[in-house]
């Protein structure tokens, strides 16, 4: 009998990369379902195109660079779904393909691959599409098939959207495929927290910060409604729960995650209030992504046995 001599520990938990990716995809399904139900079957087509092109890009990149094939880890599927959920369902399919390829190849693989990328790949893909096709990215159709303004467009004026808060919570409003229903997104978030895939710190800090800022600096004379519309419109739910919690592009320390969430929240409100686009989530998160390493460094837990500041107990 040949005995293996290897380092401890000799047992490991059953938490696996592929399981995490599977859980994230599952958690996104309610949001996708609402998107398909409200916007029609083209939402599913766009999603399928994004997933297939993301996986194909991952496969082709590994092949072209003669590196290890990494599609089995499932992360390309997650990137594909996430990108699709940030797109309007009317987007030309070639743009969906382009965004996916950019996300996988430029934002992830060229940065060193899984876990090494600085910027969230799906959001980088979306930002890229915003640059090359601002019109394609903002042409939203209403429930009647006519091009219309999203609730967020109303809020620029500023006025409260015509939809009721409840409709927006459930997703009966125009918008990107995955951002319609706060309820569906929250359900996915709760699932991820229960499965211990994410900690609630970043979403709580992010959404809490947006809530407080929009309540205090409300733009209509109905502060509470203004706050609720701010939370349920646009991509802030999708961003806070699924984008800002991306492992590679968010801090690893508990304190860092709180700071990161608050930073994303502040920037989102600032960009929404002062930016040229109605939405600010994408750029808020991408900008905060750049600070992840420095946040981790300065929020390192204190040393065991030494109080903060280096004083002995």
């Amino acid at each position: 009998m040949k005995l293996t001599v290897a380092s401890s520990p000799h047992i490991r938990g059953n938490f696996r990369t592929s399981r995490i990716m599977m859980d994230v995809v599952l958690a996104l399904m309610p949001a996708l379902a609402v998107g398909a139900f409200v916007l029609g079957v083209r939402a599913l087509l766009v999603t399928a195109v994004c997933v297939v092109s993301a996986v194909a890009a991952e496969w082709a990149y590994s092949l072209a660079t003669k590196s290890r094939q990494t599609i089995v880890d499932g992360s390309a599927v997650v990137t594909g779904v996430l990108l699709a959920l940030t797109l309007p369902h009317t987007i030309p399919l070639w743009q969906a393909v382009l965004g996916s390829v950019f996300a996988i190849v430029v934002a992830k693989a060229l940065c060193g691959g899984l876990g090494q990328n600085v910027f969230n790949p799906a959001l980088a893909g979306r930002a890229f599409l915003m640059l090359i096709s601002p019109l394609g990215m903002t042409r939203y159709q209403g429930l009647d098939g006519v091009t219309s303004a999203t609730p967020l467009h109303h809020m620029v004026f500023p006025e409260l959207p015509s939809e009721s808060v409840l409709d927006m919570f459930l997703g009966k409003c125009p918008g990107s495929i995955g951002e319609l229903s706060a309820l569906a997104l929250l359900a996915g978030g709760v699932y991820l927290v229960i499965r211990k895939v994410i900690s609630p710190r970043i979403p709580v800090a992010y959404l809490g910060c947006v809530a407080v800022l929009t309540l205090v600096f409300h733009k209509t004379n109905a502060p509470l409604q203004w706050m609720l519309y701010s939370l349920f419109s646009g991509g802030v739910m999708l961003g806070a729960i699924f984008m800002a919690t991306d492992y590679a592009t968010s801090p690893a320390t508990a304190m860092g995650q709180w700071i990161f969430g608050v930073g994303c929240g502040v920037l989102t409100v600032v960009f929404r209030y002062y930016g040229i686009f109605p939405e600010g989530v994408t750029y808020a998160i991408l900008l905060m992504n750049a600070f992840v390493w420095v946040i981790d460094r300065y929020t390192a837990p204190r040393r065991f046995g030494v109080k903060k500041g280096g004083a002995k107990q």
Partner: protein
Amino acid sequence: MKRLFFGGIHPKYNKEMSTGITEFKSIAPKQVVIPMQQHIGAPCTPMVQKGNLVKLGQKIGDGEGLCVPVHASVSGKVVAVEPRPHTSGRDVMAVVIENDFQDTAVEMVGCDDPIEKMDKDAVLHAIREAGIVGMGGAAFPGNVKALSSMGNVDTLIANACECEPYITADDSLLRTNPEQVLKGMRILGTVLQPQRIVLAVEDNKAQAIEKLKTLLPDYPQIEMKVLPTRYPQGAEKQLVQSVTGREVLPGKLPVSVGCAVFNVSTFAAIYRAVRKGMPLTQRIVTISGEAIAQPQNFIVRIGTPFHDLVAAAGGLNDKTERVISGGPMMGFAQKDLSVPVIKATNSILCLLKDVNGAAENPVCLRCGKCVGVCPMLLQPLYMYRFVNSGRLDELQRLNLMDCMECGSCAFTCPGKLPLVETFRKGKGLLREASKK
């Protein structure tokens, strides 16, 4: 549930595997291999030669400095004094004794003085002469720890956490011979005069706790603290934190915060040494794991080769992948089953191939789970990165040397990174650099 120490994990404990058989068989080995190094410190020098006849309990090796003697665990004839494979992976000088199965013992004289009249120096001397070391795994000489704790500690802790999965040796001791442990605690309590004497046990040992509850009224100076089970609570620094809330300073021992921690098996050995004059020649060893036919606890003579225990437990499964000395989290994988049980061997663990084992291509997702489970408040993901890129300045900043290799991070890592292995390598680099 309130956390008494930082981080930690809940592995599958599998303790019930080895607690089914309650009658502990003693193993009578044909030959024992007694290494001259069974403790932290200087090795013993052999005091016998090939051909000598030795008695059970006879001192066969001793040395100067940080060193405690070793004794013959059987009576018989010395057939070799030579380096032999040791659980540490190196060959270590050992005395090999052919058992004559007579158990002809040396005269053993214990101290009958009432507890309050015991002479402290005599107790420390008896502990040393009995060759007592920390039996939880670290194997620090018992008399040295006791001496350095005298006048410096207000809390004496008996460690019955046994937080590693599978192992039930201390649990078995508490279920069968709790009086020895409590009496040992009382003896050391008289020597150290702490304000508190605490028996710390995790709440997954219900039977032992019940038994102790019935006995504790006779030991008013001892309090039992039942702790919520979580690995690595039995690690010294974590146990001190769980029991007292104090954090041991970096690079220091528990005595730096007024605590002394001994394993419960060590207390039982101290009782036998002081009251009966018995040297440490046997201990309880768990043999367990999915790859062994009949997992159970044995009373084992020090020096018994692993293969004797494996045979007594019904043999190994053909698909056995690893045999480990110690627990699954911090134990050492063995390549050769001729290695002997030593004073600190609490378990022999036989494992099949682990389906969750290390990945072929480990990738760090930066998920940060390792940060959350580290009981020493370290950042394993960055330590891993900087060992691999050789950044010693960063490793220093990240306090890599504080890592105790408990394996909580590696257990939790979804990318299956070889974290502990890498950290050992990193510590080696730091040690080398500090020499220059």
